[in-house]
């Protein structure tokens, strides 16, 4: 059993799960509503990613218990996030090049 929690603690956690659910539902409605504003593409991307990140944080932090997870898991994830960033940046770096312009 991962973590020996008392029934009372588990019930408390359950309340948190339901609150997170409510938060996710609200944020989903917000992100869809914002899309109807048809913001400029730059703003739209920023707002959408911002809201998605908060939702992601809630799912990862509370549902996946990352907020109370062990150091080793954090370490693996930090490494992964770094390489993920490199993978995202790599292919479209041609924007940085000024040769020939």
């Amino acid at each position, binding site marked *: 059993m991962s973590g020996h929690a008392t029934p009372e603690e588990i019930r408390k956690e359950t309340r948190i799960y339901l609150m997170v*659910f409510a938060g996710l539902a609200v944020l989903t409605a917000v992100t869809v509503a914002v899309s109807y504003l048809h913001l400029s593409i730059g703003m739209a991307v920023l707002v959408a990613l911002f809201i998605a990140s908060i939702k992601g944080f809630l*799912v990862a932090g509370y549902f996946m218990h990352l907020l109370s997870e062990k150091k080793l898991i954090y370490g693996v994830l930090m*490494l*992964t996030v770094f390489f993920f960033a490199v993978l995202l940046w790599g292919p479209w770096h041609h924007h940085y090049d000024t040769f020939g312009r």
Partner: protein
Amino acid sequence: MDAHAHAAHGHGELEIPFNVHPRPDTGLYNAKLGIWLFLASEVMLFGALFSSLILLRTGVENWPHGWKLLNVPLATLNTFVLISSSVTVVLAWASLRLGDLRKGKIYLALTLLCALIFMVVKAFEYGSKFSHHIHPSTDNFYAIYFTMTGLHGLHVLGGMVVFAYFLGPGAKMWQTEPARFTNRIEVCGLYWHFVDLVWIFLFPTLYLL
């Protein structure tokens, strides 16, 4: 003698340490570390596809708006469905920790139901595109749309197979090793939350931008 021999179990299965109880110095049981490592690799898989999307999108002058071409209300419904399924699976795990198999199985069944609804809605979305003669080959927007939602859908399907197993023959483990069974549900839950997490980013990227 104070040296312990790790003999095999009665079932002929070798006993692997830290399968159920965490190893003291890492604080983890094996499958917990295993699933997080697997999820790290999945981050790189979907990351590569997001990276491809960015490259393709920034490589052309005109990239269509998702909200013009795709069914936003249906996908919003799907988002709520998937978020609900994340709640039900974590409640399933909580019930099992409290020793309540019946409630645990009910929540697992609800998770499976939500996943099924998601796939049905998705089938409807795809079907409506195909009936309008829109295929992945139509253009790169649809290509990346079908590929990313398709791969995500395959992951949903995989999750459904695993949940069905744990509702069915897999539940037998509760009788002999309830703690190990609970751990397995926790590990499946982590996978399922990840599937939800991918959709949380996929939905706005494809449908709302």
